[in-house]
C-alpha cells in the first residue's frame, strides 16, 4: 500500500495508525511564521470507532490502509458468522460478532448493509440510515393520545427496542433512524 504525506491528507483518506485502519475526518495545516509546520488531524479508528485528534509534523508519511466500503445484502447467521452477499457478483463474505457490533439489532434478511473491508476482511457492518420494521410488542397506548408525549418502549421484529409515541400499536411498521436509534414515523405504506 502506498504511503501518504501530510499534505495529501484529506477527509476520507484511509491510513494505518497504531496498527489499526483509520479514516481521516479533518486535516488542518498550521505553520507558525517562525516555527516548524504541523498538521492537526482528526481521525476515526475504524475498528474501535474512536475519534481522536493526532498531531503530525508536516511532511511526515504514513502507510495507506487497504479499506473499501461495499453494499451487500444480509443472508443468514450460522451461529458464529453473519453472511452477506453481493447482489451482482453473488460473492459472499462472513462477518464476525466484533464487526457486526450493535448492527445485529437491525439485521433483516435481504436488506442492504455497508460492509467495510480491510484487506478483504469485514471490520464494520453499517445499517442503512433508515430502516422500516414491524413492532412485535408494545403496551397498548391510551386511546385518543395523538400528542405522543413521553412515549413508550416497543420491541421490533429484529429485537431492537425503541421509544415510540403512545398511539403506535403492536403489528404496525415504523421507520427508525439507526444512527440515533430513534423512531421517525409510521412507515409510508
Amino acid at each position, binding site marked *: 500500500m502506498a504511503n501518504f504525506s501530510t499534505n495529501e491528507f484529506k477527509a476520507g483518506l484511509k491510513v494505518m495508525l497504531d496498527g489499526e485502519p483509520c479514516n481521516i475526518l479533518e486535516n488542518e*495545516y498550521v505553520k507558525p*511564521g517562525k516555527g*516548524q*509546520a*504541523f498538521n492537526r488531524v482528526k481521525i476515526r479508528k475504524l475498528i474501535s470507532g474512536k475519534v481522536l485528534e493526532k*498531531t503530525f509534523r508536516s511532511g*511526515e508519511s504514513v502507510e495507506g490502509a487497504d479499506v473499501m466500503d461495499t453494499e451487500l445484502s444480509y443472508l443468514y447467521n450460522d451461529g458464529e458468522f453473519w453472511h452477506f452477499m453481493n447482489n451482482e457478483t453473488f460473492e459472499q463474505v462472513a462477518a464476525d460478532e466484533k464487526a457486526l457490533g450493535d448492527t445485529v439489532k437491525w439485521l433483516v434478511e435481504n436488506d442492504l448493509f455497508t460492509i467495510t473491508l480491510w484487506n478483504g476482511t469485514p471490520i464494520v457492518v453499517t445499517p442503512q440510515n433508515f430502516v422500516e420494521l414491524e413492532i412485535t410488542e408494545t403496551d397498548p397506548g391510551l386511546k385518543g393520545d395523538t400528542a405522543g408525549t413521553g412515549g413508550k418502549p416497543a420491541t421490533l421484529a429484529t429485537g431492537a427496542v425503541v421509544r415510540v409515541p403512545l398511539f403506535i400499536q403492536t403489528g404496525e411498521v415504523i421507520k427508525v433512524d439507526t444512527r440515533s436509534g430513534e423512531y421517525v414515523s409510521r412507515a409510508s405504506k
Partner: protein
Amino acid sequence: MKNSRCHSAQLPTWQMQITPANLQLRAQLLARIRAFFSNKNVTEVEVPVLSHSGVTDPYLDNFVTQLTLGQSTTSLYLQTSPEYAMKRMLASGSGCIYYLGKAFRHEDAGRQHNPEFTMLEWYRLGFDDRQLMAEVDALLMEVLAMPSAEYLSYHSAFVDYVGVDINTATLDELVTALAIDCHYDVQQAGRDHVLQLLFNIHIEPKIGQARPCFITDFPASQAALAKINRNDPHYAHRFEVYFKGIELANGYWELTDATEQSARFAADNEARIIAGLSPVVPDERLIAALESGLPECAGVALGVDRLFMLAQNIEAISDALTFPLPRA
C-alpha cells in the same frame, strides 16, 4: 456575520475567487495603508522579489529557480520576505521605508496560507520594539476600526494559559502540559518546538479575541533577527501580533551586529543539517551591509491577506485573494 464560505465551490477555475465587492474593499485597505505611511513620511520602496540569496531559517523554504544563459546557470531565490533587501537599503541611507508587495514561501496552502502572499513590512529608524508596537497598534486601530491592543509577554502568556514558568520548567513538564497525541517524538524535536506547539494549541486560540494582542519579549532561543535584551538575556526584543486566532505580524528591534548576525546564520545552518535539510549560503551582501553599519531601527512584517480577512470576517485566505494557488 461571516462572509460566505462556499463562495468558491461552484466557481469555474478561470474566474477570480474574491468577490467583486471584496476586491473593492481590498483596494481601499491598500490605499489606507499607503496613506498611513505617507502621513508619517515613510517611503514606499520596491525590492527584488527574485534574488541571488536565500534564507537560512530552518523553518522557511525558498522557491528556487534557475537562470540559464549559454553555459552558465545561476540559482535565484524568490524572497520569503523583503527583509534583507530593505536592511541593505537602510544601510545605504534610505531612511524610514515600507514595502507592500508579494513574498513567497515554499510550503503547503491552508486556511491561513497561500504560498504567494502580500506582505507589508516597514522599518523605523531610532525606534525600539515598544515604539514600533505602538505604531502597529495605531495602524490596526485605523484599518480594523478596533480598540487599542492588549500586551502580554511570552513568559506571562505561558504562566496564564499553560500554568508553566518557561524559565524553570523541564522539557518533560512542558511535554506533559502539551497534553496532545503526537504521531512523532515531540521531545526529540526540542524545547523550542514544544514551546511553539504549546503556544499554537493552548495560547493562540485564547488571546486577542476581542482586540489584537501583542505577545512581547520572545525567548532568546527564538530571537530570529532581534536584539537580545541586555538586562535579561532570557529574552529577545521580538514581538508578534495575534487577533482572533490569526498570527498577523512579527517584529524586532533589529539586530545590527554583523558578527552576531553571521553567528545566527551559522546556527540556522547547523539546525538545518540536524533536521536533514541542505544548508543555505548566507546572504553575504546583508552581512556586508551590517558591517558597513545598519542604523539602529525596528522593523515588522504583517500579512496583508490576513489583515483583510480580519477586516471583512473572511474565513479562508483563498476568499481574500483573486487567484489562490489552486486557480493561479
